[in-house]
């Protein structure tokens, strides 16, 4: 094999790998768009292509959309508008004569949408040779290949196997592709089919390769193709580069029959109906529904923001009247807490990425390897270790020793469990305790958790702060820059003379869900799936540091002596907020702190009350107990329901109840003369939000292929992921229970809408500067609407440029007419 071939094949493998997104391990679950490799293509084309490769569904079924119509989530008017957008000349079409009466073509098409025949289930149609051979004779070759490959992956992942020589494997793969008669030009696409056939493990291997620089995916493909060659003998070889014929969509004839039934037409009218239906390809119908659904979800938000600013009474409360300015994570779950807190008292809330802009690796007081506490897009710039605070050395040491003892008891348990003979008695000895314990945890989860907390010394949260992160390795300038990033959110805008409230609360978030291997997926995504409290503590310590403040004052963003930065952590499973290091605050803030504590409690209760209603938990108490109940499959909804990302001052959304479904990022256009801040928001937090949105969407539309299926059969495999049952492909994406409850959708799959109050020029500049952002916007993976000033109407950024968001409105009259006619 020549070196050119060698490099070409390697490039082919790398390119083919893009059909799956990397899958992060369970200890740090990161939401990814399973189709991130398709973002270079327009959205629609991408989900079509994915259907060929995976047999996946990128939207809901027609039946599900119709249920949404029945439930009033989509209106007939909205559907009519969507139809007009898809078939702009629908009104120019000749009317159809049904039973002697003329019926508008639009009405016939609407009837097809609402009552027409459904499309067949999607099917994988870009097949490997072995799959084709199996289809031809009903063999089991693919199962054999899959079993061998899955076991190989499991062995590799558990460290039980070392990769062979990369060059040899490539040569082997090259020979085997040759034996299958796959021509060089088609090899990349052929390898895509193999990757798609075992997408879960391939995703894991992609993550492995990008993390430690191995070439495990290449080895996997070499193995897979070798397995294929060996099971095929001479049963077949590569035939064509194209897909098999897709399962036929509902035929015109079927659709016409259904429409005739729906409209009460006779058999004689079928031909005329079919002729009109010909204007609308069957597969476009789901797209129209999808469009209508998105408008139904997004329309009210945009309208409410516009209406809010129209009768704007934005009373710019002077920050001195505000008890605290609270900076929360942009995570949609912060919205409930922020809204309720604002209603309880004089609070100003802001949204910022929950790692507070600190790209750090943090090692806790108790030691260990520590965790990356920043989005996976970033690499931590520094490592900070937690050390005991002066005067609290003894207490800190006691805490370390306590932790050592719990670690030692873990070790003792493990030593007995992994001993060759001991398990025979361990099972017997531990059984007498384990059985009653299991019964207790199941029958009385809250009480058991309470006892466990007391035994572990938790619950009695010590009021004294005993440790801090050692920041000596960081320059004061760097720290000032990071703190400045937070001040930029509009906390200290020039027109207020840079005045801040007495307290600025930095509120990270975390979650607790017992017996859930994907628990980290509920924690802060901006902190790489970890709790955000530590970041808040580091950021607050920086902002309270007199040296940092001195530099900030030099830079023109002073922090007054009367302002104290306070860290907090929001537990999203209970909606309780815990203040961290509160005892360090100067005595003058004691009253403020007491008030803040009370208000946070009231706001948290209100927020939990709202969630108890949506989650179907009987009461707030029951809802809060869910995280500690090992039998409970959904402790909280996570980011389910997310559909929009608002970038702008809080005034945009202040009076709105956004139902925990919108990311809120604070942004002051007036403070951002050069657009750098907006550019940073669009290229980092917005992109991450899109990953989250896409993961939820695709897990909801196809819970088996893009989601990880039901939790009931999950079988965790180390830290790597979960299997469904004893083996097979690794699962990726969200569990069924996170996106659906029976027939009900917990997450409505609609693409993310970014709503920006800021200069369109700055947005264009950001799009020009970032290929990722350009693809997302111009290929319709997200829609972005913007306006420069309150009072203006929103425009939408498309591939062609800026168009009015309300483009449908000019026609909505027509749409209404056509609906009323039917």
């Amino acid at each position, binding site marked *: 094999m020549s070196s050119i071939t060698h490099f070409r094949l390697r490039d082919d493998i790398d390119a083919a790998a893009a059909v799956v997104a990397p899958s992060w391990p369970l200890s740090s679950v990161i939401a990814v768009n399973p189709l991130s490799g398709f973002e270079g293509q327009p959205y629609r084309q991408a989900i079509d292509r994915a259907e060929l490769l995976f047999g996946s569904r990128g939207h809901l079924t027609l039946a599900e959309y119709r249920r949404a119509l029945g439930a009033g989530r989509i209106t007939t008017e909205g559907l009519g508008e969507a139809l007009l957008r898809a078939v702009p000349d629908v009104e120019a079409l000749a009317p159809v004569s049904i039973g002697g009466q003329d019926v508008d073509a639009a009405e016939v098409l609407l009837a097809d949408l609402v009552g027409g025949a459904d499309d067949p289930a999607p099917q994988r149609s870009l097949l490997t040779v072995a799959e084709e051979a199996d289809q031809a004779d009903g063999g089991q070759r693919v199962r054999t290949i899959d079993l061998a490959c899955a076991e190989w992956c499991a062995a590799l992942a558990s460290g039980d196997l070392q990769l062979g020589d990369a060059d040899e494997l490539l040569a082997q793969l090259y020979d085997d592709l040759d034996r299958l008669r796959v021509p060089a030009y088609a090899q990349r696409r052929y390898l895509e089919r193999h990757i798609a056939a075992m997408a879960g493990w391939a995703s894991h291997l992609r993550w492995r390769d990008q993390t430690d620089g191995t070439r495990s995916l290449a080895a996997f493909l070499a193995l897979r193709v070798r397995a294929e060659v060996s099971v095929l003998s001479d049963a077949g070889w590569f035939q064509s580069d194209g897909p098999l014929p897709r399962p036929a969509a509902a035929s015109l004839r079927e659709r016409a029959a259904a429409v005739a039934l729906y409209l009460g037409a006779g058999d004689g009218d079928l031909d005329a109906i079919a002729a009109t239906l010909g204007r609308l390809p069957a597969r476009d119908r789901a797209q129209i529904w999808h469009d209508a659904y998105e408008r139904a979800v997004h329309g009210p938000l945009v309208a409410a923001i516009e209406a809010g600013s129209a009768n704007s009474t934005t009373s710019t409360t002077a920050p001195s009247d505000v008890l605290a300015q609270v900076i929360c994570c942009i995570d949609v779950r912060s919205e409930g807490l922020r809204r309720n807190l604002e209603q309880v008292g004089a609070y100003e809330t802001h949204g910022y990425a929950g790692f507070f802009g600190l790209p750090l690796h943090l090692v806790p007081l108790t030691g260990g390897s520590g965790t990356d506490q920043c989005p996976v897009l970033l690499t931590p710039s520094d490592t900070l270790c937690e050390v005991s605070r002066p005067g609290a050395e003894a207490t800190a040491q006691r805490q370390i020793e306590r932790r050592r003892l719990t670690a*030692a008891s873990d070790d003792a348990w493990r030593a007995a469990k992994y001993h060759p*003979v001991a398990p*025979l008695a361990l099972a017997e000895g531990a059984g007498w305790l384990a059985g009653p314990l*299991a019964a207790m945890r199941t029958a009385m989860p809250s009480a058991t958790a309470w006892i466990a907390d007391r035994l572990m010394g938790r619950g009695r949260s010590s009021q004294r702060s005993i440790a801090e992160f050692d920041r000596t390795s960081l320059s004061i300038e760097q720290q000032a820059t990071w703190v400045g990033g937070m001040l930029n959110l509009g906390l200290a805008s020039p027109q207020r003379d840079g005045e801040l409230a007495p307290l600025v609360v930095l509120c990270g978030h975390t979650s607790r869900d017992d017996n859930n291997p994907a628990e980290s997926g509920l924690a802060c995504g901006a902190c790489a799936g970890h709790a955000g409290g530590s970041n808040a503590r580091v950021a607050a310590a920086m902002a309270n540091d007199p040296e940092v403040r001195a530099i900030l004052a030099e830079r023109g963003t002073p922090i007054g002596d009367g302002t104290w930065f306070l860290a907090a952590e929001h537990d999203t499973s209970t909606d309780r907020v815990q203040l961290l290091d509160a005892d360090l605050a100067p005595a003058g803030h004691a009253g403020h702190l007491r008030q803040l504590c009370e208000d946070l409690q009231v706001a948290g209760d209100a927020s939990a009350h709202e969630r108890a209603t949506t989650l179907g938990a009987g009461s707030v108490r029951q809802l809060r107990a869910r995280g500690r109940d090992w*039998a409970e499959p959904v402790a909280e909804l996570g980011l389910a329901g997310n559909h929009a990302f608002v970038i702008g001052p809080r005034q945009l959304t202040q009076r709105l109840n956004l139902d925990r479904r919108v990311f809120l990022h604070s942004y002051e256009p007036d403070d951002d003369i050069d657009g750098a801040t907006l550019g940073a928001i669009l290229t980092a937090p917005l992109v991450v939000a899109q990953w989250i949105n896409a993961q939820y969407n695709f897990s909801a539309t196809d819970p088996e292929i893009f989601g990880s299926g039901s939790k*009931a059969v999950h079988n*965790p495999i180390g830290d790597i992921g979960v299997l469904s049952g004893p083996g*097979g492909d690794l699962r990726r994406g969200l569990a069924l229970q996170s996106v659906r409850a029976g027939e009900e959708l917990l997450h409505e799959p609609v693409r993310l809408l970014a709503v920006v109050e800021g200069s369109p020029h700055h947005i264009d500049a950001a799009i020009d500067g970032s290929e990722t952002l350009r693809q997302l916007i111009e290929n319709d993976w997200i829609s972005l609407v913007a306006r420069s000033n309150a009072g203006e109407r929103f425009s939408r950024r498309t591939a062609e440029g800026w168009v009015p968001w309300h483009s449908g409105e000019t026609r909505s009259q027509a749409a209404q007419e056509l609906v009323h006619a039917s």
Partner: protein
Amino acid sequence: MKSDASTLLLAATLVLPLLAAVLPIRLAGRTIAVAALLAGLATLDALSGSTVEAGTFAITGLTGLFALLVTGMGATVLSFATRALRDEPYQQRFATVGSLLVASGVVLATATDLALLIAAWVATSALTVALIRTGPGAGSTERSIRARRSFWISDAAVIVGGAVIIGATGQSGLGQIDGSSIGAWGPLAAILLVIGAATRSATVPFHRWLPDSLGAPTPSSALLHAGVVNGGAMLLIKAAPVSTDLRAGAILALALGAVSCVFAEAVMLTRADVKGRLAWSTIAQMSFTLVLCGVGLPLAAGLHLVAHGLYKGNLFLGSGSGVRALVRGRTAPPPISRLDGRTLGLLALPAMAVAAVLAVRMSGAEFTANLAIPAFLATVTGAAAATGWMRRTHGFAPRAAGLAAASLLVWGFVALTAALKVRIGTTTSLSDGILHPALIVPLFVALVAVAIARNRVRPAGSVQDRLWKAIRQAGQPTRPRGQLLSSRARATDPSTKPLAIPALSGSLTRS
């Protein structure tokens, strides 16, 4: 002494699970919880010396514990599934099948008539298959087909074996059957019963059904591993005079159990998935109980069954908790011990041995093999745990405290076992075995050898390397052969042959 109240308790324990089968899942769980409570009371009564009987059912110390295990875990699992399987379309079916399975388990535990026992056995087989099928539709046949086939063997063996016993002795009451009266038919009956039991206990070579069943929902697995697989050893204990008290039965149980225990242990070491490890560990543990039955230690076997069921049920229900433990390990102070594990282990071993011997002496029980083996195992376990503890801690006080705590646990465990054995031994007549209990020692040696071999560096291509690859492949979830193939395709399909690819290319060495 016969107690009327206890008769009522027993009758209610039998009836309530049947009632639960027609109730919605929430109520079903509670109903079975009541049954568990009643079974507990009846067991206490039996342990205090009363005769608890109702028709052809009776609760003794040991069978009472069986009934308590089945109802207790049944109630826990149903209550768990009330939440865990919420919104799953098969939730109610799970409740119905689960309740019926508990009902048949209680009959199996308490029946005193062989014919009745066999009927419950067959019902348990059918219900177990139904339980494994309950769950996500995809793969429901695949995960249950091996169970169906194995249980077919199991049912046939037990029915024929039972018929031989009843025919040869003319007795069907388990209390009346006398092993000596069966004559020449004895070995056949014993072998059939052991085969039936081994199948239910997922012992080699009938073990595949258990790992295959992992595709069923978590609560189903908990119920299977806590309540169903025990049926095998339970049968042997109850029918000991015509199974393991006879030489053929004893030898077969010992041989099957020992081979299976070592094999399952080896396979378990190669599995990375939580449930796979649990399933293979169950196979090893059930094989161990078969060994105990074989060497004539039915009491030790019975207690092991019950405690293991409780243990494994808990681990299955909590199978999603491992990741947090892993993360927790990343924030712990590193081990700083200067003493190595061997030294610490040698320190711990005598302490545990003293605790175990003290417990036996204080209980006043006879130091027979029925107690010696658990005492020995507890000593080893305590020493292993104490070593683990002492490697992470430093200084005298925490280490001494750990050692003391481990000793106390060993003492408590041995004392409890001794007390239970005294109580059960005086209330249940159990005969001595025919094989010498010391025959169990080679099993322990073999288990240690497997663990040592696993941790050795294995050069690629060496015998050891190939052996471990074979073991790993033995643990692979495979499809049941011939299941979906048409006969025509089977004739030509090369994939039904073992795959001759280097399925695990590269060297199987520990890094």
